[in-house]
């Protein structure tokens, strides 16, 4: 009765450790989920691209974007992928303290990114760009907002991992798997940002 | 059971056969009345019969297999030979349908491009068709017909065309605030005169194109194809094909100003109500000869509601849900009912209910029906 409670982000039941592919179920599931997410962001990015230059009134991207500023926050998010890798490595070495430190670092970097995004949004709003101003406003805020929500969910999961680890609820291989899966999600969100950053900020538009 | 199956099959066949019978409703895609609709029909007919042939072969085959191999009553169970497949057959029934489809695809492609090509020649008539919630506006933009380059000849719900002349239609949408909180929204409509052409959507922010043409004088009906709100069912129209001479005469008549009614008559009273500040009919409906939109009304008011200068020359109104019949009284009554409460006969109507008195309605009806 006093066996430690498993975190069951992997809900695999114990009998079925053998799988047909040899891959854990949860890993397959995350990959499939992320593949599905690709299409979600694909559709959002496609909308942005389709409406590029279609806005009738300003402000236009050129009027509001601050590329150096956003580059820094993009770099911060990329750096968080590195800390995520380090967190998993620590977990694999069974160094819980190290892992918690790197997870917290990852979450912090994520928060810096989200904070930066919130600051950017307020700045844009002050410059007259809102959801309703023009197509650029609608498609920009919805696309980057969706991504921001994904990062926020990621931060929540990272903090949950830290909390579980502190409560000794992240044991052994299952714990390792949890860290790895959330890591996969986190890297995915980062990669999506690289695409968004390139398409939205770096590829110049007429208007 | 076999009999029942045959009976059902027979029923389907009967349905198909009867589909060839025209309902004489002037809106029958199987009864093309011009070269463009004809092109579609010429393509559709063989495809239909190929489909029927495939239908008969496949369904007949299935029935035959069922009849032949079914286990009869009191027949002992047996284990048939275990056939797992046959690659040659598989290849065969992959290639054979593909060949049939190629046969269908070739004329399909050529017809698509034929229908899409803009008609040329000096006799081509250009009409801008605007979809409104819920009526059709027809703008004749050709210099020979229009008042000027910027002022087209306008009519509503009834598109008049000369026979044997390609009419190049540009599909647009129009809308705007009429009054209160019931704006005419720009939404998607689809223009469909089945006996003269296929469909083309009118999509806000875009232009659609199609060509229609009638072989013979007559009335051809159509309706809106795309769901567009409460009165989608009431968004009808008709195309009236006339001989070239009749058409020219029609254009001249339409360009003339309305003749003012004699003072003191019911018609004159109606005209007064029509133009009054209070009822504001003139705010949305134009009648050439009556001063244009009063101040404070939307600038594009003339595009907001059907132009009525020659209202009585048309044979239908209110999205063509009311058609002129042999009995003039019927038409008069319909018009009165419409003015009494537009939304009651055409749900969601953008024309407000002005709470007109019966006297006012009578005068307006008299006036409108005098606008030949």
């Amino acid at each position, binding site marked *: 009765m006093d066996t430690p*409670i498993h*975190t*069951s982000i992997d809900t*695999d039941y114990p*009998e079925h450790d053998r*799988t*047909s592919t040899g891959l854990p179920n949860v890993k397959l599931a995350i990959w499939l989920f992320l*593949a*599905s997410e690709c299409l979600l962001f694909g*559709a959002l990015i496609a*909308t942005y691209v389709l409406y590029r230059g*279609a806005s009738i009134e300003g402000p236009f991207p050129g009027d509001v974007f601050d590329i150096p500023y956003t580059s820094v926050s993009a770099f911060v998010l990329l750096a968080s992928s590195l800390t995520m890798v380090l967190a998993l490595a620590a977990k694999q070495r069974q160094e819980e303290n190290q892992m918690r430190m790197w997870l917290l670092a990852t979450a912090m970097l994520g928060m810096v990114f989200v904070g930066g995004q919130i600051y950017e949004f307020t700045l844009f709003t002050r410059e007259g760009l*809102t959801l309703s101003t023009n197509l650029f406003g609608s498609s920009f805020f919805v696309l980057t907002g969706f991504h921001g929500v994904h990062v926020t969910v990621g931060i929540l999961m990272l903090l949950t991992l830290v909390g*579980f680890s502190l409560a000794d609820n992240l044991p052994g291989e299952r714990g390792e798997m949890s860290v790895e899966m959330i890591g996969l999600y986190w890297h995915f969100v980062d990669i999506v940002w690289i695409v968004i950053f390139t398409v939205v900020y770096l590829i110049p538009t007429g208007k | 059971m076999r009999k*029942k199956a045959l009976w059902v099959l027979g*029923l*389907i066949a009967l*349905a198909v056969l009867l*589909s060839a019978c025209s*309902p004489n*409703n002037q809106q029958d*895609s*199987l009864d093309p009345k011009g070269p463009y609709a004809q092109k*579609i029909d010429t393509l*559709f007919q063989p495809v239909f019969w190929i489909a029927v042939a495939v*239908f008969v072969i*496949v369904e007949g085959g*299935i029935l035959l297999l*069922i009849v032949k191999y*079914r*286990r009869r009553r009191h027949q002992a169970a047996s*284990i*048939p030979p275990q*056939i797992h*497949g*046959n690659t040659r*057959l*598989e290849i065969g*029934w992959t290639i054979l349908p593909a060949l049939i*489809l190629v046969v*269908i*695809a070739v004329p*399909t492609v050529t017809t*698509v*491009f034929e229908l899409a090509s803009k008609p040329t020649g000096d006799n081509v008539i250009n009409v801008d068709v605007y979809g409104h919630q819920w009526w059709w506006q027809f703008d004749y933009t050709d210099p020979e017909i229009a008042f000027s380059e910027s002022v087209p000849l306008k009519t509503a719900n009834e598109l008049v065309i000369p026979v044997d002349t390609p009419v190049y239609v540009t599909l647009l949408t129009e809308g705007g605030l009429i009054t209160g909180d019931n*704006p005419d*929204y*720009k939404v998607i409509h689809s223009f469909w005169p089945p006996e003269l052409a*296929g*469909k*083309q*959507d009118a*999509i806000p922010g875009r232009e659609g194109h199609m060509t229609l043409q009638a072989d013979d004088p007559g009335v051809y*009906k159509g309706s809106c*194809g795309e*769901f567009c709100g*409460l009165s*989608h*069912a009431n968004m009808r129209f008709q195309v009236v094909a006339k001989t070239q001479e009749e058409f020219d005469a029609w254009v001249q008549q339409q360009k003339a100003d309305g003749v003012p009614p004699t003072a003191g008559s019911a018609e004159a009273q109606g005209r007064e109500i029509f133009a009054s500040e209070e009822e504001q009919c003139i705010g949305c409906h134009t009648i050439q000869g009556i001063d244009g939109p009063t101040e404070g009304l939307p600038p594009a008011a003339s595009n907001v509601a059907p132009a009525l200068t020659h209202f009585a020359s048309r044979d239908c109104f209110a999205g063509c849900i009311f058609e002129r019949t042999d009995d003039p009284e019927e038409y008069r009554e319909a018009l009165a009912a419409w003015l009494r409460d537009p939304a009651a006969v055409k*749900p969601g109507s953008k024309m407000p209910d002005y709470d007109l008195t019966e006297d006012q309605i009578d005068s307006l009806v008299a006036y409108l029906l005098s606008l030949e």
Partner: protein
Amino acid sequence: MASVTVPARRGGLLRRPSATTGFWSWITTVDHKKIGILYGVTAFAFFLIGGVEALLIRVQLAQPDNTVLTSDQYSQVFTMHGVTMVFLVVMPLSAAFFNYLIPLMIGARDVAFPRLNAYSYWLFLFAGLFIYSSFALGGAPNGGWFGYPPNSVTDPSIGMTFYAVGLIMTGIASTAGAVNLAVTVINMRAPGMTLFKMPVFVWMGLVVQFLLAFSLPIITVALFQLLFDRRFGTIFYDPDAGGDPLLWQHLFWLFGHPEVYILVLPAFGIISEIIPVFARKPLFGYQFVVFSGIAIGFIGFGVWAHHMFATGMGPVANTAFGISTMIIAIPTGVKIFNWMGTLWKGDLRLDSPMLFALGTVTMFVIGGLSGVMHSVVPADYQQTDTYFIVAHFHYVLFGGAIFGLFAGLYYWWPKIFGRRLNERAGKVQFWVMLIGFNLAFGPMHVLGLQGMSRRIYTYAEALNLTAWNQVATVGSFIIAMAVAIFTVAAIASFRKPRQMVDDPWDGRTLEWTTTSPPPEYNFAEIPTVTHLDDFWHNKYAETDEGEVVPVPAGGAPEHDPGHGSAGHDGDGHDIHMPSPSYYPILSAFGLPILGYGITFESLVWLAPVGALVMLIPLFAWALEPSAEEH
């Protein structure tokens, strides 16, 4: 039936539920079979509601200028009929079959993520109830199941907001379900069951889960755009601001066409199981049937714009999509020919499952042929948005999917409940439904070609469309009779004692090796698979001359369920099954709360409440072991 006792223990927020029977066992279940039954019952309830909506439509159209329904009511009814039948009937009914059968057919004890499975179901149920609550809360969706903007944005009633939020919710449920089932098929097959030893039904299930996973996110984005336009002031579909209504159509049909295959492939899978069993022959060209299913799945993503020929995409695009649509007819034809090949030289037993399966094939052929007519682009200029299309897709989705699903119900009912549906009732229902169906939808071909647009709440007498409309209305009521017969037969089946025959049809696949109904753990011993149609090969052997003889040790048809079966005597007490849980339903309950918060501006405070209600159980869920320790 052997029951698995699960000790209750403290852990997480709530005491672990332990009931294995009764009301709470259904609320907290994570058993794929119970969840499958829940899906089935819920979907059937929605089927009855959607059917009533269909009857209302037909009553309104029975007379020209009819006034049974107002235009506004009619718009709500036809929109909800479409939304219901697609999202709340055929999809969940297919999910019911997949849930119940996939683990049994691949020799697994449950799906990969049992609690996520329960979560998907509760999300779906609450989403359905959320959408239907709109009738009481200001008006149901009224812009068509296709929800084309700008009309769906500008419409002043609250309905289309419910539509956007509700469909996003069902989308979340379906995506979770899709990931779960796909992983189950890929990863949880019994030893020896390679991909090409899987039953075709499982294959079609796999294809459908991939279609769901890749098409749902696309419509989710479109629905968010619609929702944001309606609620938060974005202008994605405002043409005056440069917004393009066609973007919606592309996104919608990029989902919407794969959706057609999501709806119909499960039925194809079902009848690919039934026809071989009732012909006592293996499926003709198994690999071709599988590959054609995969091909349909792939090509299904490349034909979406054939719903948009009249939008003016230009002749090049129209031609391209016309041809891609013709191409998809080829693998579909391959399936039909292979089913015919299976009938050929068979020993055909025309029991009700087989009748419905044959009905599926014959009716789907009609829908397929009219589909080819739509790929002939110019013909589609006439036919699109008319009753011809209504006829076409009802032959596909009713003739294909619904007939197929009924075939499945008759076929697996004895397995699921241990009781047979009355055979006579089944035959009567089949013939009544077949006749009613053809009377209802056959004339719609004619109506469409004779000029009847879709979604019109009334038509003029002068159009001479009345007669065929009346035939269609009569047909629709005959269909209702058929459904009533089924409902009565279903209820009646529970009034007789259980027969508990393991293998009533002389089946070919693994689900027939276990008891009827199967024990919670499905198989006492996980089977080892050596053949396609493994169970058949355990019962019969093929001699070198192609003669088939019953295996002496097994003995057909009263075989001994020795190999890989559960046995009847309650062994399996030591099998460790996932424990029931409160958290899936608790968390799912937050979603509609969140939904109301988003839908109504005045209730925005509900949104964070709903989010918390969703989130808190998720934490408890994560802390709760999937199965309790002994």
